[in-house]
Structures are given as structure tokens and as C-alpha cells.
């Protein structure tokens, strides 16, 4: 078991555990913190897969910007107390069972796929580098890139409309 494997298992365990913590933690702020841990774990995976650009973006955008936004909103609402009313146990159970079933079904369906023995290249492979991705993004992918600007515009307008006091 090489270092890659060890890292993979460690990061996977980290991601899953922290994700579960996000779900089961009653305190919103703790949940946010655990979510950030999850994101870091995933970024670790990206690095493992030699997708450095995404790893960086993930940390900057998600763990940095988005999670701060979340935290900020939670603080703004003063929700740091444990004030979340809990769903009834039954509903929780049913929700967990439904999710479990989905997991079971998906895994049962996908466990024997024909590509299961193919390998995702780790450590090597140049495509994940900023240089390569940037070239493609600004040549071939320029149109989606421009289009995403429309998305941002609309999100901006929207946030303004919604956020502005009347």
C-alpha cells in the first residue's frame, strides 16, 4: 500500500466522516466547520488526482467564499445557539432509510459495471494544471464561459432585488 493509497483512504474517511458530522451536528456553526473540513478533504482528493487548479478553486471558492457567506448569514441571524427544532424521530428515520435505500440501489446497480477495473490516474497527468485548463477554457470553452457571465449577472440582479430594503 503506497502513499497514494494511504492518502486516498485517509481522505475518503475524512470526507465521509466530516460529511456525516455536517448532517448530524445540531449546531449550525459546527456544521459549517465540518463542511469546510469536507471541502478540504475533497480538495485533497483533487490534489491526489493531480487536479491542482480545481483543488485551489475549491478551497478559495467553496471553503473560502461560500462557507464564509454561510457563516456570515448564520451569525447575522444569530443562529449560533442550538435553536433548530428537530424533526420527529420517525421522519428522520424514514429519511435515513430512504437515503440508505437509494445508496443500496445505486451501489448494487453500479458495483458490477464494465469499467470498474479501470483506473483513475493519480499523481500524474497534466490536464488538471492551470495552464492546460486555462488554454482550453479561453479558447474552446469561451462560449460557456461567457454564458456563465449571464448567470452571474442575473444572480447579481436577483440578489440586489431580493436584498434591497423596500
Amino acid at each position: 500500500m503506497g502513499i497514494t493509497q494511504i492518502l486516498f483512504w485517509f481522505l475518503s474517511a475524512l470526507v465521509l466522516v466530516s460529511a456525516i458530522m455536517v448532517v448530524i451536528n445540531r449546531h449550525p456553526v459546527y456544521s459549517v466547520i465540518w463542511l469546510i473540513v469536507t471541502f478540504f478533504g475533497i480538495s485533497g482528493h483533487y490534489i491526489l488526482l493531480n487536479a491542482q487548479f480545481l483543488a485551489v478553486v475549491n478551497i478559495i471558492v467553496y471553503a473560502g467564499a461560500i462557507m464564509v457567506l454561510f457563516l456570515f448569514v448564520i451569525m447575522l441571524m444569530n443562529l449560533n445557539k442550538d435553536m433548530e427544532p428537530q424533526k420527529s424521530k420517525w421522519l428522520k428515520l424514514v429519511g435515513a432509510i430512504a437515503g440508505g435505500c437509494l445508496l443500496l440501489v445505486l451501489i448494487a446497480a453500479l458495483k458490477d459495471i464494465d469499467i470498474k477495473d479501470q483506473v483513475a490516474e493519480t499523481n500524474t497527468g497534466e490536464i488538471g494544471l492551470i495552464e492546460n485548463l486555462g488554454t482550453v477554457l479561453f479558447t474552446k470553452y469561451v462560449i460557456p464561459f461567457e454564458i456563465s457571465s449571464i448567470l452571474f449577472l442575473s444572480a447579481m440582479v436577483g440578489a440586489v432585488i431580493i436584498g434591497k430594503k423596500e
Partner: protein
Amino acid sequence: MPINYYIILSITLFVIGIVGVLTRRNTIIVFMCIEIMLNAVNLLLVAFSKMHHLNQLATNPTAGTEAQLFVFFIMVVAAAEVSVGLAIIVMLFRNTHSIDVNFLNRLKH
């Protein structure tokens, strides 16, 4: 790493997100769980990207790039969505002083 591991990891993560959506009442946490789902997808896409890259190395050296760019766009969209979403949550909170999902039941039947 065998791609199967990534598939199972991602799906598990994805389902954890779904379970979170199903079991939590706090709107913000629900929203965060959706982010977990998106991240599961991102991870899977990157893994597939590297898998296809490896498979098609001979014929197409840039194979797999599109998936990583897709992940980039997902992040972009997620950011936009979060900004709008949080704005809406704040607006609701201003009106009702609650972000309990179960509280949203004026509209029914």
C-alpha cells in the same frame, strides 16, 4: 486508484447529502447538504476525467479536460446559487424570524 472506489465514495457522499436534506429542518443546513451533493459530483467528475484521460492518452491527449472545466462551471453556478439562496433565506428570516423548513407550510393541498 480503481474508478470503482471513486464511484462508491462519491455516491456515498451524495447520499449523505440527500439524507441531510431529508432529515434537517434548518434551511441553511439543508442548503449546505446540497453543497455536499454538488461536491460529490465534482469529485466523481474529476475522477472520471482522469480515468478517460488515461484511457485515451494515445488518441487524445487533452481527453478529460472538459470534465474538469465542467467542475469549474459547477462551482461557478454553485456560487451564484448560494448567493441568491442566502439572499432569499435572509429575506424570509426578516419576515418570519425563522428558517425552519417545516414552517414553510402556508402553501399546501
